[in-house]
C-alpha cells in the first residue's frame, strides 16, 4: 500500500495504482480530466496530456519534485508522493494550453455533431479552456471514408486518443481498423476500407470521447439533451454480452441504445451490435428505470428522477388494530413489494 497526498487530501491505495485512479478514489472536483485513458482498455492513456499533474514530492525516500508535469493516468503512485492538481496554478495553466492544442484541428461544429451534450472534449474545453482561439491557419481535412452502415466516421473531429483502436484490438478477435499515417497526418482508417462487421464493433462509438465515431442509426435524429435515458436489459444470445444497456427515448421511440457509463464516461459493460443497433423496440427490453444523469449535464434538463420506492410509513397503532390488520389485510396499491 502507498500513501499519497493529492491536493492536500491523503489517500491510501495499493501499489501500482496510477495517480489518476488514486484521485478517482477520492472523487469530486479534484479528479484530473482524461480524454484518452479508459479503465477497461489495457494500454490506453498517456496520449492526450489532459490529465497532467504536478508531483511536488516524488516519494518518501526521494522527496525531490518531478522536473516536469506528469500524465497522471500512466504514472504510478509511490509511498509519500505529493501531487498537486487543482491547487497548482501551473497545472491549470498548462491545461488551458492542452485544450487549445486539442482544439487546433478540431472543427467547431458542435451544432451539427451528434456527440454534443455528452462530449468529453466539450466538457474539457468548457471547464478548462478559453472561449477564444488564436489559431488562424486552415484546419486539417480528410477525404470522407465510409466505414459501414452502422458507424459514422468523422475524421476531422478525431483527437487521436487511440481508444477505438484498443477496442478493436482487445475486444474483437481480428481488428480491422487502426491509425494510419504519422504526426499531423495520422488518421483512423480501416484497411482497404474494410467494413467493421464484428459483433462488438459498435463499442467504438461509446469509447470515442468526441464525435469522430458516432451511431449512424442515430445520425441527426435528435439532440441527446432532448432524449431520455432509461436503463434496461434483455437476455442476449451473444457471448460476452449480458444485455445491460441504456435506452435513449424520445417520446415512445427508442432512438438509440448505448452501453451504461459510469461518472467518468467509461463503459461499465460492453454490449454487442445486436443490442445496440437492432433492438429498438420497447418490447425487446425489460425496463429498469431512469438512468442517472449528472445534474450539471445538459442532458439532465427537464428530466426528473423520481424516487423508485417511497419510504414505508409505520403507523403507531394500538395492538388490537395491528392484529385486526394482519387478519384482514387492506388492498395493496401498486406492486412495490412484488
Amino acid at each position, binding site marked *: 500500500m502507498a500513501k499519497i497526498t493529492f491536493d492536500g487530501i491523503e489517500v491510501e491505495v495499493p501499489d501500482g495504482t496510477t495517480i489518476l485512479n488514486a484521485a478517482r478514489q477520492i472523487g469530486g472536483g479534484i479528479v484530473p480530466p482524461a480524454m484518452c485513458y479508459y479503465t477497461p482498455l489495457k494500454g490506453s492513456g498517456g496520449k492526450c496530456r489532459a490529465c497532467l499533474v504536478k508531483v511536488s514530492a516524488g516519494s518518501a525516500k526521494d522527496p525531490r519534485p518531478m522536473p516536469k508535469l506528469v500524465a497522471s493516468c500512466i504514472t504510478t503512485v509511490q509511498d509519500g508522493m505529493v501531487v498537486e492538481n487543482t491547487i497548482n496554478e501551473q497545472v491549470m495553466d498548462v491545461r488551458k494550453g492542452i485544450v487549445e492544442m486539442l482544439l487546433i484541428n478540431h472543427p467547431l*461544429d458542435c*451544432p*451539427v455533431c451528434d456527440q454534443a451534450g455528452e462530449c468529453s472534449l466539450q466538457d474539457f474545453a468548457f471547464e478548462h479552456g478559453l472561449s477564444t482561439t488564436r489559431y488562424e491557419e486552415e484546419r486539417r481535412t480528410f477525404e470522407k471514408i465510409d466505414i459501414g452502415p452502422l458507424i459514422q466516421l468523422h475524421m476531422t473531429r478525431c483527437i487521436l486518443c487511440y481508444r477505438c483502436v484498443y477496442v478493436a484490438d482487445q475486444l474483437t478477435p481480428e481488428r480491422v481498423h487502426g491509425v494510419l499515417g504519422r504526426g499531423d497526418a495520422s488518421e483512423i482508417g480501416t484497411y482497404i476500407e474494410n467494413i467493421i462487421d464484428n459483433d462488438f464493433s459498435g463499442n467504438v462509438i461509446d469509447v470515442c470521447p468526441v464525435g469522430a465515431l458516432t451511431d449512424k442509426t442515430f445520425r*441527426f435524429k435528435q439532440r441527446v439533451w432532448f432524449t431520455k435515458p432509461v436503463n434496461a436489459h434483455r437476455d442476449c444470445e451473444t457471448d460476452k454480452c449480458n444485455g445491460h444497456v441504456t435506452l435513449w427515448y424520445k417520446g415512445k421511440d427508442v432512438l438509440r441504445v448505448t452501453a451504461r457509463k459510469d461518472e467518468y464516461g467509461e463503459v461499465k459493460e460492453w454490449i454487442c451490435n445486436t443490442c445496440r443497433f437492432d433492438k429498438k423496440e420497447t418490447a425487446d427490453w425489460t425496463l429498469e428505470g431512469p438512468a442517472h444523469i449528472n445534474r450539471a449535464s445538459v442532458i439532465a434538463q427537464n428530466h426528473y428522477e423520481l424516487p423508485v420506492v417511497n419510504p414505508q410509513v409505520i403507523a403507531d397503532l394500538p395492538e388490537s388494530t395491528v392484529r385486526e390488520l394482519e387478519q384482514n389485510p387492506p388492498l395493496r396499491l401498486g406492486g412495490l413489494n412484488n
Partner: protein
Amino acid sequence: MLHKLGMTETTMESLSKRAKVLEKKPMTLAERAYLPAIFQGLSITMQHFFRAATKKQVTIRYPEETRPFSPVFRGLHVLKRDEKGRERCTACGLCAVACPAEAITMVAGERKKGEENLYREEKYAVSYEINMLRCIFCGLCEEACPKAAVYLQADKMAPPRFERDEFIYGKDRLVEPVTPDNRSKRGIQLTPEQADKLRTQLV
C-alpha cells in the same frame, strides 16, 4: 386594552412623519349650490371634445398607420439566410433547450448532394416550428443561436388569427424570403453589393 398595556393611540407616532392630518372644513355656499361645480366639470369635458379638432389627434388609424416600434422590440421570429442565400439554421436545438416556454420544436435532416446552395451546414432543419401562443418573446433563442440564424424582428408582430393551429409557424413562414428586398432589418445584414449580387443571381 391599549391603556392596560401602557400605550394609547396618540402615542403611536408615524414612522415616516409624512402623514397629514385631514381637516374637514364645512362647505362654502358655492359648493353647496352644486350647479357651479357641474358647469366647471362640463367645461373641461367640452375643452377635450373640441381639442380633437384643433390639436394633434391622440388616436391613429391602425392598419394603415402604425406606431413606431422601440429599437429593442422583440417581435415575430425570422430564420435568416447567409450572404449566399443558404439557410443558416443547422437544427442544433440550442434555441429549443433555451426556450423557457418550450415553444420551439424541430426535426433535423442530413443535407444531400446538390443541396449545398440551400443549406449552409451538413445538417439542416427539415421542419422548424414555433408555437406563437406559447412563445413569450423573451429572445433567449436569439441569444442561444450559435449560427446567428434565429432573430426576433423589431418591426413585426404575430398577427391575431382565428384558429389555434395558425399560430404554429413552420418554416414556410419563418425562413426569410430569398429576395433581398423584403428581408428583415434584424440580424446580419447584407451590404448593398451583396444584395445586388444575389439579385442578379436570382434573375
